[in-house]
């Protein structure tokens, strides 16, 4: 019953995805980035991002592939280490906000029309009514000093979209046969929601996850520029904000390294996400 639908959906989607050339290329690129992040996690690369060197703003050389910063730090190491930062932010925010959106959306959809639904819809409305950056700035501010402040702010705002999609899907699903059947044999409500209905929204969650991932990485740049982003460590956002002072003096290394690294990852992720959507729902046009 419930396992049936997802299975065929996934295998058909996988077939379609493999045929999508842009999708495959972008998946490989994303995977490449992920491997870079993994090497940093495992302590195999980028660990020297903070070590002071003897030359400020050294040009590109064999020793420093992307040159150095004001402090003589190796920009290549910083770019590599930032990949880890990006994945950390992207994954934490994407997973948390998708989970949050799935739970709230499922509850809201399953109990559509009840006070619970009303409450969740109200919360969504409220969060949507506060301009995104104002909200993030405020949360980051009120939790300030906390290294996860930025993550919390993003999760709190990004779950609403997932929630809306899941709610719609759950409303559709809950009147379907397999749900009726489960109900008839006395499966408890919680189990119906989380074991029978929610798995059927996984394609939405996956796509939303990729979208949130990208949004989070991009938001980090702006938050770091505003001084509310990454607190300790290095990230593409910090590198770009560092470069705002440098580009006018003719030092473009930091700017180019960070923007390019970020641009390629974000673009690959966007294409990947598109391909994923196409594969999962060929009829739907990507929005």
């Amino acid at each position, binding site marked *: 019953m419930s396992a049936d639908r997802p299975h065929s959906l996934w295998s058909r989607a996988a077939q379609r995805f493999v045929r999508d050339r842009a999708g495959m290329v972008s998946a490989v690129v994303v995977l490449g980035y992920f491997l870079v992040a993994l090497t940093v996690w495992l302590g195999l690369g980028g660990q020297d991002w903070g070590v002071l060197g003897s030359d400020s703003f050294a040009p590109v050389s064999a020793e420093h592939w992307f040159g150095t910063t004001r402090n003589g730090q190796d920009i290549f190491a910083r770019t590599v280490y930032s990949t880890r930062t990006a994945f950390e932010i992207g994954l934490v925010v994407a997973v948390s906000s998708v989970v949050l959106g799935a739970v709230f959306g499922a509850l809201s959809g399953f109990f559509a029309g009840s006070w619970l639904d009303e409450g969740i819809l109200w919360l969504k409305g*409220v969060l949507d009514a506060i301009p995104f950056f104002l909200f993030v700035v405020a949360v980051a501010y009120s939790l300030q000093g906390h290294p996860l402040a930025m993550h919390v702010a993003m999760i709190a705002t990004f779950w609403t979209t997932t929630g809306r999609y899941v709610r719609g899907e759950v409303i559709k699903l809950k009147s379907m046969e397999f749900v009726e059947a489960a109900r008839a044999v006395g499966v408890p409500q919680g189990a119906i929601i989380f074991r029978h209905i929610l798995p059927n929204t996984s394609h939405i969650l996956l796509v939303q996850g990729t979208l949130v991932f990208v949004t989070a990485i991009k938001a980090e740049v702006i938050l770091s520029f505003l001084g509310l982003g990454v607190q300790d460590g290095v990230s593409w956002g910090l590198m*770009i904000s560092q470069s*705002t002072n440098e580009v006018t003096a003719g030092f473009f290394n930091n700017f180019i390294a960070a*923007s390019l690294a970020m*641009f390629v990852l974000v673009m690959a992720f966007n294409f990947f996400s598109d391909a994923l959507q196409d594969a999962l729902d060929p009829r739907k046009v990507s929005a």
Partner: protein
Amino acid sequence: MAGLGYLIRRLATGIPLILGVTFISFLLMVYFGPDLSFELVGKNPTAEQIAAARAQLGYDQPFWVRYAAYLHEMVTFDFGRSVSTGQPVRGLLADAVPVSLALTLPGFVLGNLLGIALALLAAWHRGRWLDRSIMAFSVIGMSISFLIIIIVFQLLFSSRYGLNFFPVRGWDMSSPGAYLYYVTVPTLAIVFVSLGYNTRFYRAVFVEEVGRDHVRTARAFGAGAGIILWKYVLKNSLIPIITRVMFSIPSIVIAGSLLIESYFGIPGAGKLTFDAVTTGDQPVLKAVVSLTALMFVVVLIINDLLYRAVDPRVALT
């Protein structure tokens, strides 16, 4: 008559929303916000001086008293004076909001018009190379951070590394020439950053419409592209277009464009708000949050009404 009753009902449902927005914002920005007392007391303050500063800022009041005072200020729309500069908040907003509007509106309008045009083109040629390249460029555009765009555009248009035609910062609306002089680069940046998103969004809408039976029929009978796109596609897509435009309004008016304003030194509402958050200028924050919440509710209502005007099938419920 039904319309009026509907309007009242709708306004009433807006109240919990406004309360929620103000409560959350109050909690985050005002209650847990920055503390200004040390900014006001000079280099070697005594404990009494600090206490006096806190009292003057109202920090010594309990939470609910402060929130109630806020609601009262909101009803009377009198938020007093900015703590950091002493200017009346109303005056600050009256100065800043038109600037933000004038700054973001051209980019917003152009970004949407261009987005619609490109999306029509793509939808019409769906699946062909034109569609694919437009979509690919949209994704590329979407993948560049706004901050990078601003930096690059400033380098290109306003620095000795580029054309050096336009000012790096500042704002002047005293004459159309001055306005164009200052608004051009920000507008280009806004158009650039929004184009990808707009094109994708509108394309999705149009593709749906282009795929409908009556459009296909019309195409089969050889109706001109212009007529089909205008009469069937664009008109039937009005609702999503209006929704998208409407819901962007509060952020255009109030949040403005924080990055643009701070990078180009433009005294708009976005910068005003950000400065208020970071300096803990609570009266300004309270005003901005209230205004945004109110506007959001108003937009919700107007949007509903417009739905009805565009598509009579949507009942007023």
